[in-house]
């Protein structure tokens, strides 16, 4: 009874803190621009493929397998965590075991996966600590990013150790009960000299509490870590941009202006749309909520930057930095935005205070980054949105692009040729 009561208190604190964090993080979503989310079936298919099937992670097969094992392991082990919450509240032990067949399956796979996850995490730590992997470096990878990565890996490592510990001492305190369903834990249990029963019982309780408290702590550290992606990546994949990658998003607000320009007699009522605060993206509030979700789903793996032609050839652009900048700027501005509304200004902006023009103009829109991202983040949409702001609100474009634009305006081609010259090739 005391245990259940204690557990309830801890659970309520965990949920309370978590909800408070969620409000802080997601509170600005209603202020951001809309993003179409039609096509549920297509989205479901993408989610099955990219999230559950880890299709993009497997573009790098070896390390991809390690990640997929951790991901699938988490799905299975989460069932066990739900059971632990029920056990903790009800004072029962292994609540799901009342459905023995189902239970055998989840316990068995949970046991196997806990070791697979453990091994994968050790491999990830080794890669980070001992190997020089290009995508783990870059201007945007400050020491805090490295600490963040290490902390998450160590917590997961401890989670697996405590899970195995719980199972091992469960077997020692309940001989013959789940030995067949927990093959690895049973094997490890054999290496322990059977301790006296009360000590084994204490060890079981200790590991059990260690595991569940780590889960609770992890859940509340995640919202402030790049590993928030544990929660955000599946929704992010579901809400992916499902248009062809090269398609740019329409700007109906410009269509209205252009139509009035081409035909001043056009009745404005026909093309009625509220005039936007500004064209393109200068700061957080000019982004869609999906751009923001992208930033929350980024785990800074750097696969995008690792395939970016601009970055590979030494330009300043790094697609990962763009996404991390969105997240950092949103974090900086969201409290003010929540308090004072959409017109809140703090004298800073995503453009220039975070992302320079040089980075934006280096993009070739090749979409290698967007194609690579394991959680379907779309970086070029942000880059092009910012170019739109530069070109239309500030009329600041690189000089050669300015001449290209005036050529199109004057003679309908990016080069200085008259329209009649379009027929020259026909003489052959």
């Amino acid at each position: 009874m005391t245990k259940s009561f204690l557990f309830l208190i801890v659970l309520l604190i965990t949920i309370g803190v978590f909800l408070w964090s969620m409000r802080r993080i997601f509170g600005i979503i209603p202020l951001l621009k809309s993003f179409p989310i039609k096509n549920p079936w297509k989205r479901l298919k993408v989610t099955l493929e990219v999230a559950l099937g880890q299709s993009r992670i497997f573009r790098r097969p070896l390390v991809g397998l390690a990640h997929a094992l951790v991901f699938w392991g988490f799905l299975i082990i989460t069932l066990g965590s739900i059971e632990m919450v029920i056990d903790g509240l009800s004072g029962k032990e292994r609540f799901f075991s009342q459905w023995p067949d189902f239970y055998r399956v989840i316990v068995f796979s949970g046991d196997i996966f806990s070791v697979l996850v453990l091994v994968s995490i050790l491999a990830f730590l080794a890669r980070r600590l001992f190997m020089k992997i290009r995508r783990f470096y870059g201007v945007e990878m400050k020491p805090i990013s490295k600490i963040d990565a290490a902390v998450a890996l160590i917590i997961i490592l401890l989670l697996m150790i405590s899970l195995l510990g719980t199972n091992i001492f469960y077997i020692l305190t309940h001989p013959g009960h789940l030995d067949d369903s927990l093959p690895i834990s049973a094997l490890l249990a054999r290496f322990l000299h059977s301790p006296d029963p009360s000590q084994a019982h204490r060890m079981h309780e200790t590991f059990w509490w260690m595991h569940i408290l780590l889960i609770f702590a992890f859940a509340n550290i995640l919202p402030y870590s790049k590993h928030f992606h544990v929660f955000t990546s599946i929704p992010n994949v579901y809400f992916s941009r499902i248009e062809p990658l090269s398609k740019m998003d329409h700007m109906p607000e410009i269509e209205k202006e252009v139509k009035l320009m081409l035909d001043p007699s056009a009745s404005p009522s026909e093309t009625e749309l509220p005039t936007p605060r500004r064209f393109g993206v200068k700061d957080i509030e000019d982004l869609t909520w999906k751009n923001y979700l992208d930033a929350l789903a980024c785990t800074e793996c750097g696969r995008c930057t690792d395939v970016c032609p601009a970055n590979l050839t030494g330009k300043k652009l790094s697609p990962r930095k763009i996404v991390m900048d969105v997240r950092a700027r949103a974090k900086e501005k969201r409290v003010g935005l929540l308090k004072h509304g959409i017109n809140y200004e703090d004298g800073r902006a995503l453009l220039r205070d975070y992302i320079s023009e040089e980075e934006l103009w280096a993009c070739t829109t090749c979409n290698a980054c967007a194609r690579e991202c394991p959680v379907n983040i779309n970086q070029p949409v942000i880059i092009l949105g910012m170019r739109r702001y530069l070109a239309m609100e500030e009329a600041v474009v690189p000089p050669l692009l300015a001449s290209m634009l005036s050529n199109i305006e004057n003679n309908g081609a990016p080069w200085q040729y008259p329209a009649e010259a379009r027929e020259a090739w026909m003489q052959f």
Partner: protein
Amino acid sequence: MSEYKIPILREMNRTPEYLFWVGCAGAFDPRYKKVTQAFAKILIYAQIDFGCLGSEETCTGDPARRAGNEMLYQMQALQVIETLQRYQIKKIITICPHCFNILKNEYPDLGGHFEVMHHSTFLKKLLDEGRLKINLEKLKNKTATFHDPCYLGRGNGIYDAPREVITGSGIQLREMKRNRSFSLCCGAGGAQMFKEAEPGHTEVYAERTREVLSTQAEIVATACPFCMTMLSDGIKKENKDEEIQNLDIAELILLSLH
């Protein structure tokens, strides 16, 4: 005196089945004009009912849009859509992946709905239908590598059609390390074609050219005017233009025709 007569829409009193959208590079770039001519020859050879807009063609607005000028893009686009609708065009073939992408994916947002095909898909269709008599002997001892245009491959998921056209010409295909969705950009997309690159330790086209050369292929096949400019420049700068030729997939087909 012209050997080939290219039908121009304003001189035709009817709507042909296909509009051949030439694009700015196809009309003005000296090297790509040859690709335009090669593709037109294939259309004539296969007796395709087509026409061109000639001087009535104008920029689709792609580079303006990618440079951020949505206003200019939409003015160009609305003008093009008006012209296409005036001629009651239903189907469009283009030899430029950038024109292809914008006509196919972006014009519908402004009310322009057309069936748009890139010439790789169209050439594959002609091959499948047996409308091109290919002499497989002509190129069989040669090897080509293929550089995926971003706006065709990653951008629109078309990877197989250009490859089937290449192998359909009888030539051997040897892939680069980074191919299909892993392909490396030539460096020209997103309006980069019209500006200087930002400072870096090398140029994107130089990086890609080195990869092209490492295949030891005799031909690098492209399917985009900008990719062609970039890779041809890269090959010239490496002084390898004696060893490797940069040809469009349409030129490969033309070379292998009976």
